[in-house]
Every structure is written in C-alpha cells, then in structure tokens.
C-alpha cells in the first residue's frame, strides 16, 4: 500500500513536470502555431540553470552558489527565456517547417554543448551537487511535499497560460497562427507577438526543467534525449488537445500513464525470462495505444475551445 502511494507520488510528480512542459509547448504551438521541435534544449537549459545556482559544495564544474530553490526556478525561467529570445530573433521569421528544423538543430547544438563542456556542466559525467532542499527540511515526507509543489507550479503555469490565451493577446496569437500576413496588415507586429509567445513558452519549459532537476537530484545529458524530452511532449499535447491548456495537462497525465503503465501489462502477461521481448512489446503497445487515441479522438481529448466573446 505504502509502495503504491510512493509510486503514485512519483507518477504524479513526473506527469506534473510533463504537464508544465506541455503547457509551454501549447503556448508556442497551440496558441501561435510555432513548430518548436527543440523543447529539450529549453528544458535542459532550465534544468542546468537551476542546478548551477542552487548547487552546493566544491564542484568540478560551475555551481556551488547555494541559492534557494525558488531562485533556481526564477533563474531557469530567465535563462531559458533569454535563450528563447535570441533563438527567436534569428528563427522566428522562418516559415513553420523551417522553424521546426532550425529548432531541432539548435537544440542538438545546445545538447552537445551541455554534453561536451565539462567545465561548465560536468559534461558526460553529469551535474552533481544539486541541492534537494526538501530532503533536509522535510525528511521522510519530502516526496509528497515535492509533488504538491509540482502541482502548485503547474497550477500557476496553467493560470498564466489560460489568462494569456483568453485575452486579446491570445486572440492576436491565434490570428497570427491563422494568417500572418493579414495579422500584420491589421497592425499587429507579428514578430514581436511571436517572440513573446516563444519566450513565454520556453520560459515555462525552463521552469519544467528546474522542477525536474530538483526532483531527480542529478542531471546528465541523457535526460534530455529528444525522444523523451521533445517528441513525447508533442505526443502529449496533440493527444490532449493542442490549443487547450487543460488538454495539454490532461495529455501529459494520460500519455505518461500510457508510457509508464504499459510496463505493468507486459510484465503481467509475459513470463519473467522474456523480459527483453517484454520491453519491445511494451513499446509496441505504446505505439498501438497512441494510434487508438488518435483514431478515436483526432482533435485531441479536449479539442481547442476558443473563448467566445459573450453575448448580451
């Protein structure tokens, strides 16, 4: 029983972190239609930024400042946001397909920098010395508290996204998504708006990275492999319903549930010595389940539901 609760806590924490990332992507893709396929980069930069400012001890790489976690979160958002600003400046006037590839390219470059610049990030050996301040303060129950904190952060991110979406700001973003030329002709500085959306989304992704960092207490470049740090988040957003903040979160919970939960299915139907085949079957299941979700709900579980001006 206790074990299940522990697993539940881990599950919710991870799903919550993915929820934050998925919200960030929703701002960029769901609102504005920017095809960012470099989520991992902003995720990682946020993670490392927070790790650097909060870590303690004599470290073989940057860090050791020992700032409180909240400062780490802020740093993550700021650094990811600034990075997004510059990435945005050079890529956002590209057409969407090109933005996609440029973002993949930049993300890979950033991943390689994090991987190879040992003096800064610990390189392939990973970043050590990350403070999990909760460990010391609330020994024992800290995992639960951390999960609650993740949910609070997710709630705040949701609030910010929802307000942004429902406001004229969100309306302009949708207009840009639909027809950028017309939006410009209607006086909207589309570059500025897209930049805002890109920076906001990326800052939220960075925040997700920070939350992830303090949860795992150890980060290394493998954690930001495109499969789990970019593609999976896309799957979450699309399955959940892009353009819909609730959908983004729901998608994260459901897809993480599928990703993590299929394990139970394969391990319960296969004998133990077929564990290897089980792992392949599991991936097969994930693929099939994904198709099933898409076939039954092609608009996502919660389709976009733009706020309508009320009637009198």
């Amino acid at each position, binding site marked *: 029983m206790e074990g299940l609760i522990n697993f539940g806590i881990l599950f919710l924490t991870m799903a919550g972190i993915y929820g934050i990332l998925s919200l960030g992507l929703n701002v960029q893709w769901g609102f504005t239609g920017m095809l960012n396929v470099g989520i991992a980069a902003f995720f990682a930069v946020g993670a490392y930024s927070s790790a650097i400012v909060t870590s303690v001890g004599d470290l073989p790489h940057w860090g050791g400042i020992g700032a409180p976690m909240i400062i780490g979160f802020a740093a993550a958002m700021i650094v990811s946001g600034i990075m997004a600003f510059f990435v945005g400046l050079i890529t956002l006037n590209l057409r969407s397909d090109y933005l996609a590839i440029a973002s993949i390219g930049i993300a890979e470059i950033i991943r390689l920098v994090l991987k190879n610049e040992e003096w800064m990030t610990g390189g392939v050996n990973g970043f050590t010395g990350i403070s999990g301040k909760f460990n010391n303060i609330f020994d024992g129950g800290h995992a639960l508290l951390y999960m609650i904190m993740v949910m609070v952060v997710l709630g705040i991110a949701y609030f*910010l996204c929802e*307000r*942004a979406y*429902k*406001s*004229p*700001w969100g*309306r*302009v973003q*949708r*207009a840009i998504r*639909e*027809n950028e*030329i*017309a*939006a*410009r*002709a*209607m*006086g*909207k*500085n*589309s570059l500025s708006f897209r930049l*805002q959306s890109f920076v*906001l989304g990326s800052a939220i992704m960075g925040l997700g990275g920070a939350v992830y960092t303090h949860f795992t207490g150890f980060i290394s470049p493998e954690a930001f492999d495109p499969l789990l740090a970019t593609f999976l988040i896309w799957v979450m957003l699309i399955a959940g319903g892009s353009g819909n903040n609730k959908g983004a979160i729901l998608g994260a919970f459901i897809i993480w549930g599928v990703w993590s939960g299929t394990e139970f299915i394969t391990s319960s139907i296969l004998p133990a010595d077929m564990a290897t085949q089980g792992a392949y079957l599991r991936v097969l299941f994930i693929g099939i389940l994904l198709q099933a979700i898409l076939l039954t709900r092609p608009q996502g579980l919660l389709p976009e539901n*733009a706020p*309508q*001006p*009320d009637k009198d």
Partner: protein
Amino acid sequence: MISIQSLSKSFGGVKAVNGCSFDIEQGTITGLIGPNGAGKTTLFNMIAGAFAPTSGKIIYQGQDVTGLRADQLFHKGIVRTFQIPHEFERMTALENLMMVPPGQNGENLFRTWFSWAGVRNQEREVRKKGEEVLEFLQLTHIRDELAGNLSGGQKKLLELGRTMMTEAKVVLLDEPGAGVNRTLLAKLAEMIKQLRDERGYTFALIEHDMDLIAHLCDPVVCMAQGAVLCQGDFESVRSNEEVLEAYLGSSAHQETEGKA
C-alpha cells in the same frame, strides 16, 4: 496625402509595377482600374507594406514611408483589404473583427495577468463595436461562425468590416465588390461616401465594376502594364481610347454608354 513616385516592383524577370507615379489626395475616393495583371494589387501591397518596392518612393503625409512594415503603416493610419480574402479561418467572424483595434490593453501579457478587470471592460467595448459592424454588413447571423466557413462574398464583407474597426486615415480596398451582391454593394458605396464625408477618410479602391467606379470615384487612375495609363475624372478616363482598348473593351463601352 499619399504620393507615389516612380514606384517599381519586379518578381524575378517580371516587372509587375514599372515606374508608376500618381497622388492620392486627401479626402478623395480614388479609383484604380486597369486590366488584369496591370499591377494594381502589387501597388497596394507596396503602399501597405506587404513588401518593399524594387525602386521608387512612397511619401505619406510628407513623410517617406517606403519599406516600412505593414504593421507600422497600419499604425500610421493606412489600412487595406485583400483581393483574395485573408480571413482568420478558425476564428469566428466576430473575433476576426475584434482582433483589429490597435493597442488593446489585453494585448499586453502583464496586463492580462495582473489587471484582468480592465482588460475585460475594454473587451466589452470592442465587442460592441464588432457587433455594430456585423450588423451594418448584414452578417449578424454569422457572428459566431468560423470565418473559414463563410461564403465567398461573406468573406469579402468581413474583409471590409475589418477596416471599419479602426480609425484609419487611408483605406485601400482591393476589389471590394467582386463577388458581393449588388444590392449590398450599393449600400457599401453609400457607406464609403459617408465615411469619407463624416470622418474624412481617404479611400483608394481597385474595382472592375464600372457602375461602382462611376458612382463613387473621383479621380480615377487607370493602370496598364505596371504604369499609369491615364487619370482624371471617370468620364475622361472612360472615353480615353487606350483605356477602351486595353481595359473596357468595345462592348462594355457601349453598355455603359447606353446606361448613361
């Protein structure tokens, strides 16, 4: 108001606009006619900042505005419509209008987060205005229909409606009449006049419907092959031999003649 000075634009080898010069006077409704492919839309695109000219200058209120971006020109008071409607497909008709007014509080992220009440109040005003415009265009029944689902003519009307959502100084209309029902078009013409008279807007409009041009426009500029062929009041342009040859064709000539 706007002075176009030997403006040119080429695409690859094609000279779409080629040394075109004329003025749009304050308070006029300038009609722009010319054969298909004469460069009228391209000219509008340059005036409205959709793309920069290859050479030449655009002077607006004494200021050189050549090469400014579309959104910058919008804020200077130049608003345009598109010949092929550029609606925001997956937004409702009302939203298409509501997004237009510039400088809405809610376009600032921080205000949306921290001063929601103010944003909502302003939204109400913008909505009212949008609804008025819809009513005027007889589109109230499709208020909440996605713009992508509108009929061809409804899209054109919506296109026009967007220019009515803002305080413009110059409005460029690219074939507002094509595909619009004639009864409604006559009303639109009245409205254009009214806007000019009451609010001092300046209009430039491209149109192939000679009735509308005759009724509304003075002066009329006729373009051909990227340059101005002739200009003047409608009568003089209409009776110009070259215009007849290149644009009106002989039968149209007779037809309008017969009516007049």
